[in-house]
């Protein structure tokens, strides 16, 4: 992710992109947490604030940016719609901040949070 400007280059680190993405994801309705990318013993680890970037994988090849998000969604919501919102929000937020197109946003629903009174 670098742009060539007449006076130099601008490089944006994957970590920075992940931060932008995490802000967008967490404000999406239905998302109640970020999760680790790997399942330990079949269970996803819910990430605490400060570690959210571990639930986001940003890849780039040439000019293609791909973002993979690992999230926990609230049980009882329509997952396909929530995931759709996540993809749109993250794509919009990252493209707006970077000014560069995002090729793919993939949502991995690692778990559902069941509220205490269900």
């Amino acid at each position, binding site marked *: 992710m670098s742009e060539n400007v007449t006076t130099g280059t601008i490089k944006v680190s994957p970590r920075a992109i992940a931060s932008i993405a995490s802000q967008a994801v967490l404000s999406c309705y*239905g998302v109640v947490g970020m999760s680790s990318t790997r399942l330990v013993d079949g269970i996803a680890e819910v990430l605490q604030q400060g570690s959210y970037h571990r639930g986001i994988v940003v890849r780039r090849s040439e000019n293609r940016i791909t973002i993979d998000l690992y999230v926990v969604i609230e049980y009882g919501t*329509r997952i396909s*719609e929530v995931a759709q*919102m996540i993809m749109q929000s993250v794509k919009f937020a990252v*493209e707006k901040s970077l000014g560069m197109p995002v090729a793919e946003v993939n949502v991995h629903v690692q778990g559902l949070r069941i*509220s205490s009174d269900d």
Partner: protein
Amino acid sequence: MPVNTPDLVGAADLLSALQAGYTWLEVHVAQVNALNVFPVPDGDTGTNMALTVRAALDEARGQEWTSVSELARAVAHGALMGARGNSGVITSQILRGFARGLDGYKEFNAAQAAHALSEASATAYKGVMKPVEGTILTVVREAALAGTQAVAQGADLAGWLTASLQAAQHALEQTPTQLPVLAEAGVVDAGGQGFVFLLEGIKRFMMGETRELVVPAMVITEHHVLEDSTYNFDTQFIIHGQALDVNAIRERIAEFGDSVMVVGDEQAVKVHVHCDDPGLALSYGITQGRVTTVIIENMQEQFEAFNQPPSIKPTETAFGKVGIVAVASGDGLAQVLTSLGVSVVVPGGQTMNPSTQDLLVAIDSLSQDEVIVLPNNPNIILTAEQAKAIASRQVVVVPSRTIPQGIAALLAFNFQADLDENTATMSEACNNVETIEVTRAVRTAQVNGFKVEEGQLIALLNDDLTAVADSMEQVIDEVMAKMDLDKYELVTVYYGKDTTAEQAEAMAADLQNKYPALAVEVLDGGQAHYFYIISLE
């Protein structure tokens, strides 16, 4: 229908009240949609909320409910299954909380209603990590709070309703002060407005302020009523205005035909009539105010279609073992897909938003054990995956993002190959097609580095905004100029509902002249929103 607001509400009244809320929202759908702050016309808040509530009420239909607890639970379940868009999901959460609040009750009083609304608000807030104030969440919360306070001060059901609605309306008016983007656009929050309409409809019904809006609207949108009418056209529209005289309008409309249903109030009147010249009814409507949501259908065709449930009936295919389900956004496109071997076409509707249920019904209607689903829209890919997860037969989703991709995939289908091989070749075929969609911007915004003014024409290349212009010719020229045309041979132009055949032919001829190396074909797609969907291969 209560004349005096009762002190205890049972299941039958609750259902009627919810229907009244839905009807009031539905009548104002266009108004809610207009509050959206994004430039592309699909996926609107009003439509999404209305569809979600409608799905919720459909779940409750056809049964005698004896307890509000069970009714509310069914409604919540329907909302979950039918939730569309962000606002739909939040609405489903609100209904879920409301049902939880009524758990165990046969009837409820003011105090219990206040509790249920508080639960609704709490559940809605639980669904997101960082609740954004200035949205529907704020409106629900304020309504619940005011309702609880009113009841604590001894209010009855009428008092609870009035207090809750008032607080909701006030909170809605405050939303521009909480979200800068609303202030910039000069609007209140769309989701909040949708909720206010729902609550308002319920309140008006419960307090006996409208007697007519409840049942008729549900009947009209279903088209299950098959009247023996001698007229040809089923004509419906909504008139928006000031000081509308419902009775006078009804009398006049009755002169045009029969099966007259005119309901509403001073600001919105829904007209339904069977007549021979819909133009007359519309012309009259236009003299009364602003006419929207015009639906005119040829009843002879409807009658024929009624006898065979449309589009869920699988056509005979030569493909034997594998059935194909595809989503289309227009009649012409549906026909193209069917002619290419699609077993069942699911109509995507105005906003290309079929629910998981719609896809499941289509999948289940097939006789084949193996099914391929072509969503033809990025919004639908996930819904398709969900249907696949729930379906009992073997389903594969080929992630086509546009109709041209879906068509390319269909052409790549080989009935002699097995499911895995076909999935691979079809997916690859999707990637070899470029899709251009041309539509009109519904709002001024900045997207992808382009400054778009409301009303300008925009061209999307594979879902990315690529060109903006004031004329059709210009916008198409610009987008074509950005492509490496040496790579393509065949251009197929599908023209939509808002484009005439002549316009399409003229545009195609123009393209052919400018790019003689390309073979240009024109087909009637009949899709809404997009003047042209152009595929390049």
